[in-house]
Structure formats: structure tokens, C-alpha cells
């Protein structure tokens, strides 16, 4: 669901970027009177940049304190962004880039840990917790229900308790 979400907004952004480019191109055709000009995107290829940044958001900047490659301005992050951009320009898919980075830096670079032996518990943990919680909930409710049905029938215990409390059984039944 999440990736769908990201790609949809990515698409929207790309469309907007494209529209902007068109507008910019049209503007360039018109002789401009004033000195105001439209600021150029930082990236040479905004669509590629967008793709690069979307990927960089789920990759860790290895020398930073818990920042993604997209957020960080550290030298390494800038270098790696250039590297990713370059590889994408040469036609590498997102997976190719990820594989390359993992081969070089290990799983540490991924903010979405891969599913394997050592992360099995990480990925299954929430599900196990949920099953455990629901199990406990069901048990509690079923037990309560048993109590609710049994309670009125257990007259002997009630009578004994009332005796202890000094309430006469005759009064209770009337």
C-alpha cells in the first residue's frame, strides 16, 4: 500500500514537474521584458532526480546520525546521491542500485531490513504479538462469559457468603 502511495505521488510530482518544464519552455519563447527569470531546478533531469530522491529516502546515510541519504548533506551522502544518479542515468533499475549499495555497505544501508534468518523475528514479531494479544483477549472474554452464565446458578456459594455477611437467606429470596 505504501509503495503504491509513494509511486502515485511520485507520478503526480512528475506530471507537475513536466507541466512546469513546459511552462518554462513556453516562457523561454516569449521575449521577457523584466529581469525576473524562473529559477532552474537544481537537478539537470528533474524526473530522474525525483526517482533518485524517492530511493534515497529509504537508504541510510552511513556516516550520519540516523538520517536518510535524501536528507543528509554530509559529503558521503552527496557522493552516494551522485553515484545513484549516475547509475540511474546509465539505466540501472532501483533494485540494481540497492544491490550495488548492499554489496558495498551491507544491509546497514537499508532502512527496510531484508527478510532473512536474522530478521525473521523482526518481521514476524508484530504478527506474533497481535496473535498473542487477540488470543489473550478471546480467553479473557470467554472466561468472563462463563462467569456471567454461571453466576446466578451458583446459589450455594452465594448463600454461604451471605451467611458470612450476616444477611438472612429468607430476606434475599423475597
Amino acid at each position: 500500500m505504501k509503495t503504491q502511495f509513494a509511486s502515485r505521488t511520485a507520478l503526480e510530482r512528475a506530471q507537475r514537474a513536466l507541466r512546469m518544464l513546459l511552462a518554462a519552455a513556453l516562457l523561454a519563447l516569449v521575449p521577457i521584458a523584466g529581469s525576473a527569470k524562473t529559477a532552474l531546478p537544481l537537478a539537470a533531469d528533474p524526473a530522474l532526480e525525483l526517482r533518485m530522491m524517492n530511493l534515497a529516502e529509504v537508504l541510510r546515510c552511513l556516516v550520519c546520525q540516523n538520517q536518510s541519504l535524501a536528507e543528509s548533506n554530509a559529503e558521503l551522502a552527496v557522493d552516494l546521491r551522485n553515484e545513484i544518479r549516475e547509475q540511474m542515468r546509465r539505466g540501472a533499475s532501483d533494485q540494481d542500485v540497492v544491490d550495488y549499495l548492499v554489496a558495498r555497505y551491507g544491509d546497514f544501508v537499508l532502512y527496510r531490513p531484508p527478510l532473512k534468518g536474522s530478521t525473521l523475528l523482526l518481521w514476524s514479531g508484530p504478527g506474533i504479538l497481535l496473535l498473542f494479544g487477540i488470543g489473550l483477549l478471546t480467553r479473557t472474554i470467554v472466561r468472563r462469559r462463563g462467569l456471567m452464565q454461571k453466576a446466578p446458578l451458583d446459589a450455594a456459594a452465594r448463600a454461604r457468603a451471605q451467611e458470612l455477611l450476616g444477611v438472612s437467606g429468607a430476606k434475599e429470596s423475597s
Partner: protein
Amino acid sequence: MLPEIGHFALILALTLALAQGVFPLLGAARGDPAWMRVARTTALGQFLFIALAFGALVNAFVSNDFSVLYVASNSNSSLPLQYRIAATWGGHEGSMLLWVLILAGWTVAVSRFSRHLPEDFVARVLGVLGLVSAGFLAFLLFTSNPFLRLMPAPADGRSLNPLLQDIGMVLHPPMLYMGYVGFSVAFAFAIAALLSGRLDAAWARWSRPWTTLAWAFLSLGVALGSLWAYYELGWGGWWFWDPVENASFIPWLVGTALIHSLAVTERRGAFKGWTVLLAIFTFSLSLVGTFLVRSGVLTSVHAFATDPARGSFVLVFLGVVVGGALLLFASRAHRIGLGGRFDPVSRESMLLLNNVMLAVAAGSVLLGTLYPLVLDALAAGKISVGRPYFEAVFIPLMAPAMFLIGVGPMAHWKKTSLPDLAIRLRWAFAVGLVTALLVPFAMGGWSTPVSLGILLAAWIVTSSLAGLLERLRQSRHSMGILAGLRSNSRSYYGMLLAHIGIAVFIAGATLVRGYETDKEVRMSVGDSVEVGGYSFRLDRIFEVPGPNYIAQRGEVSVSRNGRAVTTMYPEKRNYGEQKNPMTEAAIDWGFVRDLYVSFGERLDPTTWAVRIYHKPFVEFIWVGWLLMALGGLLAVFDRRYRIAAREPQPAPAPAMLQFDAGVAGAR
């Protein structure tokens, strides 16, 4: 001289805390009123001495006393006064001192506002708080003394991290600690109840306002932290699933479960054991949070400290607190009893389901936060667990709980009927559904995740209003609408407000996620760019001297359809001692959208990389949290807690509940 006085004051506070921990507990066990009375006096004394120590430290900062090591490493003379004061808790030692100060403050508040409670119960509550405080004071004195001298004194100090030189640093940590530490009161009430065998509705009623108050503070603290990160870090995010953020969010989740569970315990006498466990866990997780942040096991923006002695101390302390509390719980569990009975479909069972979801969510966030640390410690590889994991796990777990917010308050205690609920809520659901279908189009394009988020938000609002309307309709026969409104309790309105706060938060988070636009451009003076329908023009760049930095300030005029909207001033600040310039984003705050301009690198003498965002409804995120906190506060001031304060009541309920427990136990 003053720092030494502060040091001695801390030692005296430790001895008083020990006295407060030992004598009242023994006195309560032996039924000795004189020993029990020690609690209130020592609590006050302890507070005064800690306040003295804190004052001494603040004074050292204000007067630039760099012969104190802690001051020299966290402040310098060019720092403006408000940040010198805030620098008191800018490092490890000072923030621990703030922690014990707040703990002592809560303790005095409890001793002051608990005169209507049985003396032995208060003695036990204060005793437990005394022991907790003694642990932290020992931690301070033995591993993190803020009053150590540095000889010879340097001429000037190292500075506070520029990121921390912000009003956020003045407000966020005290607020967060008010919440964290406040849960120690809930914990103390739970332990006192276990010790005295008074696990009943009365205990829940006494404990409830304190717990809700702590929760409200924690909510504010979390929200302030998020807001601060948003405007200070310069890349416009508001939650990063950073381990330190999680450290405050996990206690919040469990605390949220706790205030709901307490409601059932107070009203129906049920879930007593579960409530006690939650109280123990909420406080323990606050301690885990402290351990995570303070031991240096994390590498993140917030972790200042790296000293194994501290980590081991907190870990042992944590073991004693959690282990001791759970042992006590286990030894008393058979006496707790079940309390009021309820049907599988009832308000109780829905609240229980809400508790399960919140607890599972908290457990999952904890798992994701600790997993890389454990894996690393076991030398099983280094991994990172970040946003993709937490969102994949957290959102599906929370969505059903959010849906329940609409149903739970409409359900009857003990037994409710699903078809009846469906009929009462059908209009609320219909309105919610239509809203969810319309909003994405109004915002500029269909998006399924947005629609689902809006459905939840709208559903919470409409179902809350449906509940209110129903109450009004029931009371209308006898009185007018105003009187009807007034007949509901403050805690009811508190609940409504907090739930609507959740809805507002969801709406904000969803909309900004779905419709945010941004551009990263190179700008020279005179250049303009259009983002989100607004046109941004860089008019000039000029140098501005700050108290301890020099800023390059840009002037960006913003217009929409040719009409001027505002002028924004993003900055890049050079703090002399820091190598990298800090980004100070300019934000034009607005109810329906924020404009966010942040300078990146200087590309050449006249050109800057500039990142501009249009963030629709982003402020709903913090408005939502604020509403939650306000809802909590409103509930704290419910009349029934004060009525209880005026007439000390023997409470007939406990006898009956104990009878229930006895019957249950007999089986």
C-alpha cells in the same frame, strides 16, 4: 561556592529520599502513624534541596562559571540568556537533575492534593516515589554529577549544539519529562495498591487524574519535539521514527492504553490486574526510554552521553524496578479478582481490544527500535530499521483501533448489541464515507490512501458528534440544549476533544503526505519559482549578525495570482565554532497550508540551492496533539475528583468487589 552547596544539597536530598522511601513504607506495614507522617515532610524537604541544587546549577550557567565542568562543556559566554538557562538541561547531567526536580515536584503535588486519601495509602505512594527518587539521585551523584569542578577553569566554554539553541530546547525537555516522570505517580499508585491490597475502583479514581495529567504532558512533549524537528532540522519532516522519538512514543502508546484501562477499572471494577501491569509497564518504558537515550547505545542526534557506567546503572535500576514490581504483582495476582462482568460485545470488551491494539503497536515499535541493537550486540550483523518498517507495521495496527474510537464510546457498559450500534451510527458512517470520497477530489486528485485516512478522521468526528447528539436528545425532554450540554461531565468532553484531536491529526498527516509539493532549485537574486500555486521570488541576500552567529539571510517575496502574500526570510547561520553552517528554514504558518523555504548549499557567490515546500494542512498534526492534551487536561478537572476530595468516603464499592473477588477466588 554555590556549586558545592548544590552538590551538598543533592546529597541531603538523597538521604531525605531514602528516609521517604523507607519509613513511610515500614510505617504503613506496621500501622505506625508517626512513621507514615515522615512521608510528607521528607517529600517537601527533598523538593527544596533539589530545587536548591537546580538553582545553583542554573546560576552557574547564567553567571558563566566555567570552573564547573558541565557548564564549560555545554555553554559559553556568547550564548543568549534564555539558551544559557536552557543549556542547564542541554547535556546529560543537567537533564537528569531536571528529571529528579520534576519527580520531586510531582511528589510534593501528590502529598499536597491527597489529603482525602487514607493515610497509609498516601504513605505507600510517597514511599515508592521516594525510592524511585533515591535511585535517580544516586545515579546523579555517582555517575553524573553536574557540579564537578574543572581546574584550571577555561576562559570560555564549548558551545551548546546550535540545533539546541532554540525555544524548542527551552520547552520540549521539561514538558516531556513532566510526562515521563508523571507516570512514576501512576506506578507508585499501582504499587501502593498492590502493597495494601486496595485494588479497587477507589484506587482507580485516585490514580486517574494523575495518570491523565502525565499523559497530557507527555502528549505535549511529543508534539513539541515533532514541531521542533519540523522547523529546525530544515528538511520539513515531522516524524522520523528515530529511536529517541520512539523512546518517547512507546510510553505514550502504553500510557494511552493505561488511561483507557483505568476508565474501565474505575467505572466497572474490571481489568484491575491489567491496569496495574500497564501502570508498571508505562513507567518501566519511560525508564527504558531514559536508558536508550542516556546510555549512548544509540547513535542519533539526541544521544549526548556515551559512558558505560551510566548505562549499566540505569539497566540495573530498571531491572530492580521492573523485576520488583512484577514479583510483587505475581505474589498478589491471586487476590486481584475479576471485578464487574461483561459480555463479549460491550464497551468493556471494546476498550480491551483497544488496549490490545495499543499494546501490540507499542511492542512492535519497541521491537523495531531494539532489534538492531540486539543484533549488533550479538554480532549477528548491522541492520537499520527505519520508516519503511515502522509504517508497514504501525499503520495497519492502528487503523482498526482508530475505527474503534467511533464505536466504543457509543457502546453500553456490560452488554451492547451490534445491530443497535449499527443503526445508531449509520448516519455518522454515511457522512464520513461521503467526506472521504469528496475530499481527495477537492484537494486535487484521487488517492486511495488519502481517502482511507480521511475516512478514519471523518468517522471519528461524525461518530463523536453522533454520541453527543444522542446524549442531548435524551436529556432534552427535561431541559434546554444548553442545560443538556452542561449536564455532561468534563471528562466526557475531555474524551470527545481528545478523540477529535486524533481525527485532526490523522487528517493533517494524511493530507500533507498525499498533496505536499516541493522543488529544489538554484536561485540567484531576482529568480522566481512556482510551488503549490505560489510564486516565490528571491529579492536579495544580506548578512545579519546574531548574538553568537552570522547569518546569510534571504528575502523571498511570495505572491499568488499576482497578489503579494508574504515575505519570508530563510537563513544560513555560521556559528563560529561549528564547521558546517546551520539551516534556519523560513516558514509561513497557515491554517490550511505551510510554506517552507530552506537554504541549501551556496553554489557560487550569488547562487544558492533552495528547497521550497508547499505543505497543505500540515499544522493539523500539532493542532491534533494539542487537542488531545487539552482533552486530557479537561478530564483531569472533572468535578467528581474534587467531590471525592471534599468528602473522604468509605466507598461502598470495594466491599462488593472484594466479595466478587472472593467468590471468583473460591472457584
